[in-house]
């Protein structure tokens, strides 16, 4: 595996956190509409796992997709513009928070029907295999597919892991187990709370600490290598915790303030910061500098979004078909 740049990862995690805090503010000001699902508390999963992908690899994710987009290196400006519903957004203002994407970065998007996108990810991986075996192309890409614990009870989940195993596809399934399916606790929504065991008849897998970016990177790299080398799919269950509500409008009746406070000591950003301080890779002055840079980057994204024009009304009629008739 390529050497992990922990300072760079720290910066990306801070960028995600800051981006999400600004989103919350802008949502409160009604400049962002619809649903807003924040990634606060789960940053180490996206940064660690996506950091292990190569440019030729593919990324498919769920509706809580801001962290994955930023971790894959998407520019915060068109992302914020998308949230503002502006023409300069990643999806020209037609997707919103749940549908970030960037074809140039093989980021196939955030999807909002829980569990369904696993099948698209399987299809993208099938495409890689077909290109190798039938078209003779030299494609060694791997697909990484993120989803939550709540996505592992429906039929599409089982169809996806079954097909991926049947065809030995180059895909890594990455379950972000944040212990809640929206507001329904893990033990209430499934009999098999160790989610990776659901996939165990089909493929190897394991449960990892999703709040430790070093562990995530290491385990994700091994999983990707497994898939790239033709051994078929791999399943990672990353244990994490969402520190904000399911969406920005969630009163969080299903847990107490004390529950959340107790989990703050396990905040992945604080854990990494302490590690960097302990190892002498970071001091308080440098930390402040990074924080300030990140803050400026997100403020610039908000400014970009504010100053961008709304889509022309004719845009509503564009992109219905690739080839209109």
């Amino acid at each position, binding site marked *: 595996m390529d050497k992990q740049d922990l300072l760079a990862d720290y910066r990306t995690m801070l960028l995600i956190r800051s981006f999400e805090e600004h989103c919350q503010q802008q949502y409160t000001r009604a400049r962002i509409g619809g649903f807003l699902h924040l990634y606060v508390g789960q940053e180490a999963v996206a940064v660690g796992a996506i950091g292990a992908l190569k440019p030729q690899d593919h990324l498919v994710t769920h509706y809580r997709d801001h962290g994955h987009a930023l971790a894959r290196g998407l520019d915060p400006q068109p992302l914020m513009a998308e949230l503002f519903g502006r023409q300069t957004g990643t*999806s020209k203002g037609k997707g919103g928070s749940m549908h970030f*994407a960037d074809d140039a970065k093989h980021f196939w*998007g955030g999807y909002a029907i829980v569990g*369904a996108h696993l099948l698209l*990810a399987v299809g993208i991986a099938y495409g890689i295999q*077909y*290109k190798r075996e039938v*078209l003779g192309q030299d494609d060694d890409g791997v697909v990484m597919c993120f989803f939550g614990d709540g996505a592992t009870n429906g039929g599409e989940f089982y169809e996806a892991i079954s097909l991926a195993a049947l065809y030995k596809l180059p895909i890594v399934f990455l379950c972000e187990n944040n212990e809640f399916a929206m507001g329904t606790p893990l033990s209430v929504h499934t009999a098999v709370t160790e989610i990776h065991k659901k996939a165990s008849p089909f493929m190897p897998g394991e449960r990892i600490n999703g709040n430790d970016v070093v562990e995530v990177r290491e385990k994700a790299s091994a999983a990707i290598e497994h898939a790239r080398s033709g051994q078929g799919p791999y399943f990672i269950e990353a244990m994490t915790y969402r520190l904000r509500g399911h969406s920005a409008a969630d009163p969080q009746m299903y847990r107490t303030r004390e529950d959340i406070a107790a989990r703050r000591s396990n905040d992945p950003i604080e854990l990494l910061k302490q590690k960097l301080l302990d190892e002498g890779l970071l001091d308080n002055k440098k930390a402040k500098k990074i924080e300030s840079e990140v803050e400026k980057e997100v403020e610039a994204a908000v400014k970009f979004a504010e100053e961008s024009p709304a889509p022309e009304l004719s845009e509503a009629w564009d992109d*219905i078909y*690739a080839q209109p008739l």
Partner: protein
Amino acid sequence: MPVITFMEALRQALRDAMHADERVFIIGEDVVHYDSAYGVTKGFVKEFGDKRIRDMPIAEAGYAGLGIGAAMNGLRPVVEMMTTNFALLALDMIVNHAAKIHYMFGGQFTVPIVFRLPNGYGQLSATHSQAFDNYYAYIPGLKVVAPGTPYDAKGMMRAAIEDPDPVIFIEHTGIYSVKGEVPEESYTVPIGKSNLLRDGKDVTIVCYGRMTPMVQQAAEKLAEEGIDAAIVDLRTLRPLDMEPVIESFRKTNRAVIATEEWTSVGVGAEIAARLYTEGFDYIDAPIWRVGFDEVPMPYAKNLETAVVPHPESVIDAVKQVLAGKTQRIRQQ
């Protein structure tokens, strides 16, 4: 010109497309080891190998999604759903994904996929004898075709495979054996164009798919009685091309819509609405619709025969329209 069956026409188009482009592959239930449920792709595995045509597990959402993902990643899958009834299990994939992905990501991805949906009936009872053409025709982002002649079947299948958007290809098993003139060479028939199959001055009969050959039979019998019926074959249900329908209606001022579906809220209901909104100035008589009786499909032969449309149902509807009678759609 050779005279071949509707099924053979489909088969020729699929073979031509498979030969022309290695990105085209077929997936579906029982397409390899069983060698095709209805025989449309019989022998393909010998000709193309088991990578180009592959048996899928009975997991309709699963292989529909697999096809969509592969299409997004640059391939040209043809997904055979075995029957339109089973395709219901893949509706999330088709409606929430195939139809939406190009639009909701601002045009970044395309989904060049064909879903083949055979449907029909034949003493198969309630869950195997349905028509859901309207489900797909309702969805912006899908292209929905339902050819009614062997010539169109071949040309539209090739067009569907070459099209960069998701195409729902509705094939009625009841017309697989219908014969017609079909050129040997490869050609396309454009999606999104209705076709005036027969000109006439007394009444315009609008149809597609299975009803097209039935309506042709009905028109011949009507001609023997001195009634001159025009036939417009829609061929594509979305995007709908009303121009040939309105053009004919302008001359006949009377219309019968013959579709093999439950009449209420069906494709035919849309055609009737368009005739009222776009053709209001030309209406001289109530518009009649022919379709299934609004009951779940019964098994017993006599019951099934009684609740599905026949050429005689079309003839009767035409006579009612010419007599200026109003139609009452019966529901329970």
